[in-house]
């Protein structure tokens, strides 16, 4: 039974349960809602909880666990399992999974006769080609053994789906009955619903946390795998980045890290003063009418996709810089892609972040501080410098660090504006590249997933993650220190 149907049936049952439980509770109090312990709707919601919560939990768990279990059991039955390496097993399993999917789709579309799918015969059909026509690419030709395994896979999946449907619906029915039975005037439905709501909220929070933990763990595991294959000292201290997909590459992070920091630095040098001054102008000097127009206009900048900024870097800023600093000008610049190009454009991208965050923070400074300063005979700019920025400093530092995190994580502008050469150089008019850009290029290669050239992407990602984490912790520390002092 398709999952969608199961879900629909459960929710229909929940809706009916709501009405039934509510009416039963009302009836037990002789139709007088005041005789009930809780408001009538609570009895209904209690029924909804009882029907939906356990059955949907089981459904979700089943959907996650079943494919893994089925995969294991099919893999265990592979004919020459013991002779295979783990990489081969996963390749074979991926083919089996795809073939099984292809059979299912093929039968549904009539491209593969059901006998082939169910039975043992391969004769007369080129399954690989048929599958390719259906848009499913198999890694190798279909052998007898693969077909048998795929058929076993399909059979087990079908059994599992049936069992899942029965289990989920049975649970929903049980919940229905239990809730309906308990719905009488003395039942404390409100308290049960309250606890249900609490559990729901806790679950939502833990999903967010668990996903984060999962992502971090997967980063760490792959990083560890990388360091098994490649010496850590060389990764962290080698000044060259020279991956060659045949093996024997040098994978030093230093040039990438340098490129990242250099570009981010230029971006911040552009964005922080302009953004901050914009915010000060808008919040302290501009009249309400100008503000009403200018603030949204600046925020539009924040809505532009970064790829557009990348194009801007590639087609406008790069050539403009070339005209001044290139061969026809001062001669510092060899090509349009450079640290300066990417840094300038990234700075423009960050202006609205800095300005709109700072603007909110400056506006939150109490008017009484401004009045106090002005009443002492300070000019507006003295007030801004000595009182408002002082009071807003923790927030502004936070805004700047947020902008820095974005700069460090930015990819598209770098790919288009900074070039792809990993280089350790002080000249901002030279092409360089960043950690993020290299993560992309390492992962989009056609390489074996277990090679150091691919796994290095995870080590790069982990390093980046640690850097931004340290920055955020530092920002929190600064902010807290100032809060303690001035609140």
């Amino acid at each position, binding site marked *: 039974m398709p999952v969608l149907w199961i879900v629909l049936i459960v929710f229909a049952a929940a809706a009916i349960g709501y009405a039934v439980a509510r009416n039963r509770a009302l009836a037990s109090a002789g139709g007088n809602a005041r005789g009930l312990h809780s408001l009538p709707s609570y009895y209904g919601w209690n029924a909804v909880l009882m029907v939906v919560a356990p059955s949907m939990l089981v459904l979700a768990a089943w959907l996650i666990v079943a494919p893994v279990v089925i995969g294991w059991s099919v893999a265990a039955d592979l004919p020459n399992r013991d002779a295979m390496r783990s990489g081969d097993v996963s390749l074979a399993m991926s083919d089996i999974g795809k073939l099984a999917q292809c059979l299912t789709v093929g039968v549904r579309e009539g491209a593969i006769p059901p006998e082939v799918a169910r039975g043992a015969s391969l004769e007369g059909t080129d399954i690989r080609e048929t599958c390719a026509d259906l848009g499913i690419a198999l890694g190798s030709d279909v052998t007898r053994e693969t077909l048998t395994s795929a058929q076993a896979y399909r059979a087990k999946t079908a059994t599992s789906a049936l069992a899942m449907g029965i289990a989920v619906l049975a649970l929903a029915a049980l919940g229905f009955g239990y809730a309906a039975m308990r719905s009488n005037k003395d039942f404390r439905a409100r308290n049960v619903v309250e606890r249900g709501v609490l559990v729901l909220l806790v679950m939502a929070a833990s999903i967010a946390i668990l996903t984060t933990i999962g992502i971090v763990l997967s980063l760490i595991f792959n990083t560890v795998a990388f360091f098994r294959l490649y010496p850590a000292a060389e990764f962290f201290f080698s000044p060259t980045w020279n991956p060659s997909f045949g093996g024997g590459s040098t994978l030093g992070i230093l040039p990438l890290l340098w490129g990242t920091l250099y570009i981010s630095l230029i971006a911040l040098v552009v964005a922080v003063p302009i953004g901050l001054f914009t915010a000060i102008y808008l919040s302290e000097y501009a009249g309400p009418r100008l503000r009403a127009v200018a603030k949204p206009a600046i925020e539009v900048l924040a809505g532009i996709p970064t790829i557009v900024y990348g194009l801007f870097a590639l087609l406008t800023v790069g050539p403009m810089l070339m005209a001044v600093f290139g061969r026809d000008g001062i001669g510092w610049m060899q090509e349009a892609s450079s640290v300066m190009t990417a840094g300038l454009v990234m700075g423009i991208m960050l202006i609205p972040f800095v300005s709109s965050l700072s603007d909110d923070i400056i506006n939150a400074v109490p008017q*009484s*501080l401004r009045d*106090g*300063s002005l*009443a*002492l*005979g*300070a000019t507006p700019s003295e007030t801004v410098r*000595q009182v408002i920025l002082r009071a807003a400093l923790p927030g502004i530092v936070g805004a700047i660090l947020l902008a820095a995190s974005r700069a460090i994580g930015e990819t598209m502008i770098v790919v288009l504006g900074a070039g792809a050469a990993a280089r350790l150089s002080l000249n901002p008019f030279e092409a360089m590249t960043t950690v993020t850009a290299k993560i992309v290029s390492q992962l989009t290669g056609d390489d074996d997933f277990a090679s150091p050239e691919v796994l290095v992407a995870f080590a790069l990602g982990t390093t980046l993650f640690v850097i931004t984490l340290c920055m955020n912790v530092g920002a929190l520390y600064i902010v807290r220190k100032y809060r303690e002092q*001035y609140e």
Partner: protein
Amino acid sequence: MYDTRNAERDVTQNEIKMSARKCQVFYGDKQAIIDVDIDVEDKMVTAFIGPSGCGKSTFLRVLNRMNDTIPIARVEGAITLDGEDIYDPRVDPVQLRARVGMVFQKPNPFPKSIYDNVAYGPRIHGLATGKAEMDAIVEKSLRRAALWDEVKDRLQEPGTGLSGGQQQRLCIARAVATEPEVLLMDEPCSALDPIATSQVEELIDELRESYSVVIVTHSMQQAARVSQKTAFFHLGYLVEYGETGQIFTNPRDERTESYISGRIG
């Protein structure tokens, strides 16, 4: 009925420090001050009393042009300080505010150390040459605000860490430090306990030696205790202005009389 410890105040006419003629204030279309004429005398405490919303704070802000910071506010009429029109385009409001200081209803210390709070005005106006002179100004101002003994060992701690009453005295010290000629105080004691209030009142009495002080207050007792002249505002009009003793014992206008005896408010 009221403590008229200052009843035998010197009633000799002092010099006129600030004056207003036909003063009008509008917030947008709404008029908050109507036809106010007043002379604030030098070296005296003038109290503004009146029911809430009658325009006391608004008129106080007229005297140091703080209404300039409210975009919708508009002031008309002739307001002078030492005979000069302070709304003349040639007058710099920033300089004016250095001469006419202000203390607000709610204490508003800056997010700086106690020392820097007091030194703020003198620094901006370049009143001290060198650290020693600045130290002297800070100490003197804190002493005048009756705060020195409490904070002399913690001058580098943030001013925001003081208690509400201490903060208010810090704000007074801050205003006094710039040596203004007129000090405007908008309900300076409304956040203070009785002890701090009486300290501030003593301070106001001392300040009278050198400055002209204008204080807005909701406490009749306070007005009677600290002021020599009292102005009663009602619905934007200045209803009655005269010597404090006369206003409280023998008001001429019946609105004044009903207000101070608690019938309108």
